[in-house]
């Protein structure tokens, strides 16, 4: 062992750190998982109640026909863009610093898509008739478009998550022998598909990943586009927009990046990944976040100015309620808290610190949730005929189910960390091998960069 090079030592250390959560489980983990299970359990009780008594137990009525469920749907589908799309873009552009974060990003996609895809099902009046979508699906309906593209995206992102996992499953199989149950070991063996790290295998894997990373980009874009089209294929004020497709895609990537930053921070703290996920990762991702923040701000401005200027009656009503009326609190919290404050945090060098960046990301997602709410609800509440504004107050059932959705998101994540290595070990190693010919990496520093997305500002790595 004393002949190990620095590089080998670094690799060993990485393996140990990354594989540790698979075998060691703290008491805190159990407490955390149990509390999530409780919240999910309450949500399930609420849903059973809804199944038994009908959607009457929700706050939705004939005017405001969609509420929290559809808001959550758009939100989670948005978050799902974090992952795959971003990791695909970073891989395609050979951004070397991506290596420690792609796995998490891809995992976010799969989990968020599953939770998001469940939301419209929960919203259905007749969930027992889901098979009708396959049996009688009518291609002219935006709901069918959604069904198709979300199913495609889920399949593709599962593959995209799985492919880079193959060598890591093999690693887990090798390293965890004796440290874990034989069933689990067998599972790793099975999932690694006989990976021996042969050049031919590597070549094939790389090809598979390359194909997926290109494929995933149009699929991901199509998903959020058709989600927006559920709204913009109608003639309602606020929804009747031509830019909804790109507007939603940008919003999705925006909230997705914020999602990655938040998740990255949590994992870094809990599983002590400080050596691999460094201040640089937060900084680079927040530059991306800033870019999408500004694009989203621009889209929002363009959308509301072009409709607001003309003041067509419905749009006029709607805008008034958004800007100064009953929804103004939501709207301005979104604009100030979800767009302006996070942008400021990133722009100012002295606030560009990890905890503040994470805070900004959380604010972004709170803002984006509110934004989705003010997209869904006010346009429905708006009178189509001379009546009062529709009223929508979510009930405990909707709140419990929504809470369960968020808890379920965290829960699947928590469980997944016990099964799969949360950092792609082989890709890290590959990066080191490629990036450094002479000098072994000092793990205490950041991962090497070949093509950073943005220039390093030279600021301190750690706040």
């Amino acid at each position, binding site marked *: 062992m004393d002949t190990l090079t620095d590089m080998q030592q670094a690799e060993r250390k990485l393996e140990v750190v990354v594989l540790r959560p698979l075998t060691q489980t703290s008491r805190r983990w159990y407490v955390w998982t149990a509390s999530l299970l409780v919240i999910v359990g309450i949500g399930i009780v609420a849903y059973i109640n809804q199944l038994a008594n009908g959607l009457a137990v929700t706050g939705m009525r004939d005017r405001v026909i969609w509420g929290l469920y559809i808001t959550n749907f758009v939100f989670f589908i948005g978050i799902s863009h974090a992952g795959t799309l971003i990791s695909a873009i970073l891989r395609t552009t050979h951004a070397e610093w991506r290596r420690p974060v792609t796995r998490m990003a891809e995992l976010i996609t799969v989990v968020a898509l599953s939770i998001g895809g469940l939301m419209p099902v929960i*919203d259905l009046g007749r969930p027992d*008739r889901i098979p009708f979508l396959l049996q009688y699906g009518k291609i002219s309906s935006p709901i069918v478009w959604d069904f198709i593209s979300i199913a495609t995206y889920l399949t593709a992102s599962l593959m995209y998550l799985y492919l880079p996992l193959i060598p890591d499953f093999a690693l887990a199989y090798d390293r965890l022998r004796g440290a874990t149950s034989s069933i689990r070991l067998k599972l790793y063996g099975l999932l690694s598909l006989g990976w021996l790290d042969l050049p031919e295998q590597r070549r094939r894997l790389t090809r598979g990943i390359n194909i997926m990373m290109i494929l995933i980009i149009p699929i991901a874009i199509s998903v959020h586009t058709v989600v927006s089209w559920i709204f913009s294929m109608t003639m309602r004020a606020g929804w009747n927009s031509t830019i909804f497709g790109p507007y939603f895609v940008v919003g999705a990537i925006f909230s997705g990046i914020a999602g990655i930053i938040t998740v990255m921070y949590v994992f870094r703290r809990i599983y002590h990944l400080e050596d691999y996920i460094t201040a640089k990762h937060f900084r680079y991702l927040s530059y991306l976040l800033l870019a999408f923040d500004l694009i989203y701000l621009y889209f929002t401005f363009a959308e509301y100015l072009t409709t607001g200027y003309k003041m067509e009656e419905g749009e006029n009503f709607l805008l008034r309620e958004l800007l100064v009326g009953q929804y103004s609190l939501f709207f301005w919290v979104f604009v100030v808290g979800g767009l302006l404050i996070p942008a400021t945090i990133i722009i100012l060098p002295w606030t560009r610190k990890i905890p503040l960046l994470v805070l900004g990301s959380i604010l972004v997602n709170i803002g984006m949730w509110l934004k989705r709410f003010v997209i869904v609800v006010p346009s*429905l509440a708006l009178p189509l005929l001379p009546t009062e504004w529709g009223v929508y107050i979510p009930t405990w059932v909707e709140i419990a189910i929504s809470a369960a959705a968020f808890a379920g998101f965290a829960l699947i994540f928590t469980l997944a960390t016990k099964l799969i290595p949360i950092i792609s070990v082989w890709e890290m190693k590959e990066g080191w091998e490629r990036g450094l010919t002479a000098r072994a990496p000092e793990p205490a520093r950041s991962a090497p960069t070949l093509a950073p997305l943005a220039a390093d500002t030279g600021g301190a790595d750690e706040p």
Partner: protein
Amino acid sequence: MNDDPQDLKQRVNRRQLLKLLGTVGVTPIAARLLPDLLPHLSDASPAQDKTESRRIRQWVLVFDLRKCEGCVTIGEAPQCIEACNAEHFVPKGQEWIKVFEMESPGGHSFFLPRPCMQCENPPCLNVCPVGATYMNEEGVVLVNHERCIGCRMCMAACPYAARVFNWEQPENPPGATFATYSPEYPVPHRQGTVEKCMLCAHRTMDGKLPACVEGCPMYAIYLGDLTEDIATNGKDVVKLSLFLASNSAYRLKEELGTRPRVFYIPGHGQESGHDIDEHRPVIPARSWQEQGVSLDDPQGGH
């Protein structure tokens, strides 16, 4: 209607229609595909009466607002709503036809009954993911409640807020479980499915006027047929096109391109003695339970 009631039943069956399409140059392939693309051409349609006539009715409604005074002058709830509620056992809390009090430019108001517009280009139909909303050959937009998955996309798409939803299991009249359900007469009602006015398809099929037309004490509602260019309110018979044109009829939100089949003749109830200076609000309509109707009643239809 000056029509022989038997005549109203006349319509082509599917084979005849396809033959007709074939003769006007639609390729046989298209004719084969058509039943899939247009569910209303399929055999599932209960309209199977076969006659020699190839005429297909194209129903429209005309509301003569000069006569409609929201039933306020007679101190009743709108009788069209109540007739509709009784006819279809409309679930409590729903109104398939609503009467709105609209503001006129001069500051006064008039009454506007709003059923489903039976749009010729129905946004609700286009967005339905499972084809539960469809149009029959008479241009009536129907909902198949055995197919509807309750996504409410159609409600989001309808610009006239004509659709309502069974948020819970609606109360059905005793014996309704044994009633034969059809999209034309959707009783019993089902939880988690969408409901709306279907222009009393079950009644027009039998040569009867829709419940609202019959129920209106002011004879303000006309059922018309575009094919024969005729309309009646149960008392007078008019030539539809002339009636619409000479009275400056309009349609709601015409600019949306939905091509509604419901027309309005502007007015404020003046012909029914409504005093425009006297403001009386619309009285809430009674549900079928409150009216005490049952499935055996003649207005119960079946």
